[in-house]
């Protein structure tokens, strides 16, 4: 099949059947259920250890009420991590490159934190709009600026994830195209390009993990402010 550069970002179809649901839910199949065992096999042990680590890290700064969010945050983290890493394999579709999906994740969760804050502790929540120690003449301007920054948060969350992953995938594709095109012409330069591609792929692996972590971390930060 002759691929264009858009094919990676189009939702997959098989004979007209949209496969987006399978593509989004497939990563869950990769995690074995721990079952009733006390000492599980290596994969399950590592998975449990990783989940433990993630949950501890995320919930450390939150107070007791924030622990209700443990399941959402941990599952979100695992979801994004797996999808991002699986997207680096060839011919895979990465759901998180779609802005629609990332906004669908970011917007409701951000709104949930905001509404929690406004409902339970409205004055503290609104008080976050003004940083401490600002000189008095600047207060109106600063409130406007902080409000804008608050309202732009979901957009930032979604677009950050989308842009990072899309840019990474696109770069991989472009550099591999260049490497392939240069192969018959200047093999040495092609080799150089391939080495750049190797480094880029390593970077992309790192970015995949970091972006998932950053998304969930920022959400937990917004939660910390508001709960």
């Amino acid at each position, binding site marked *: *099949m*002759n*691929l264009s550069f858009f094919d990676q970002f189009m939702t997959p179809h098989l004979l007209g059947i949209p496969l987006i649901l399978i593509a989004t839910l497939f990563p869950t199949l990769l995690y*074995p*259920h721990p*079952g*009733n*065992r*006390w*000492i*599980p*096999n*290596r*994969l399950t*042990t*590592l998975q449990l*250890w990783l989940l433990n680590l993630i949950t501890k890290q995320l919930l450390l700064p939150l107070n007791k009420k924030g622990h209700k969010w443990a399941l959402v945050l941990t599952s979100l983290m695992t979801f994004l991590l797996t999808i991002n890493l699986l997207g*680096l*394999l*060839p*011919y895979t579709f990465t759901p998180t490159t779609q802005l629609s999906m990332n906004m669908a994740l970011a917007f409701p969760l951000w709104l949930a934190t905001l509404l929690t804050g406004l409902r339970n502790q409205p004055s503290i929540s609104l008080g976050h709009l003004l940083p401490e120690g600002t000189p008095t003449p600047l207060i109106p301007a600063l409130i406007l600026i902080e409000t804008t920054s608050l309202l732009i948060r979901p957009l930032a969350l979604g677009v950050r994830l989308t842009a990072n992953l899309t840019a990474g995938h696109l770069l*991989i*594709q*472009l550099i*591999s*195209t260049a*490497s*392939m095109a240069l192969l018959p012409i200047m093999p040495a330069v092609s080799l150089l390009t*391939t080495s750049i*591609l*190797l480094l880029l*792929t*390593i970077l992309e*692996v790192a970015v995949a993990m970091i972006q998932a972590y950053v998304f969930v971390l920022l959400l937990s930060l917004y939660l910390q402010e508001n709960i």
Partner: protein
Amino acid sequence: VLHTTRQLHTTQQSLAPLPPLPEKGGEVRHGLIPEEFFQFLYPKTGVTGPYMLGTGLVLYLLSKEIYVVNHETVAAACILSIIIYAVKRFGGDVAAFADKLNEEKIAKALAVKNEAMENLQTAIEEEKKEQWRVEGRSYLFDAKRNNVAMLLETNYRERLMMVYNEVKKRLDYQVAMQNLRRQKEQDHMIEWVEKNVVKSITPQQQKESIAKCILDLKALSKGAHAAV
């Protein structure tokens, strides 16, 4: 994975005790293809069978352009080489880490059990010691009994001594009274005799005695003069 994967109603539903996990995972060749596949093809095609199959398949896909070589091929080569490198380099360490986690879990439980056993063992020994101590109880009582007897004896002797002293005091008093009486009688008698004797000395006798004394003195003085 939910328990819907088990066949329904073929076994009792108890989940314990679980069958133990196999010691090693399934044998794989080149990290991907199970060993059973090679064994499956061995009777018909020998050792090189599966490799021929694989090579033929790949070449077929490539030559007929069923698989088109495009930019994704290069990207695939990169990511796969990275994955293989990571697995080969860190695979052993990760497996050892997982084993260590499990070992620590087991060791903690074992430590609890061993500590409990040691505590009980120590308790048993302490109990035995206490029982041995109890046997020596009779000696303790004997010693105490001796002590008490000695105290009683001492007390009795002290009281005897006291009685003796009291009786002696009373007898001494009587003796002293008698002595006093004797003494007084003696003194009185001596005094009476002296008084009477002095009274009986008449003046005649007095003169005679004085003259005799003077004569004696003269005789003595003469004798003394002669001596000197």
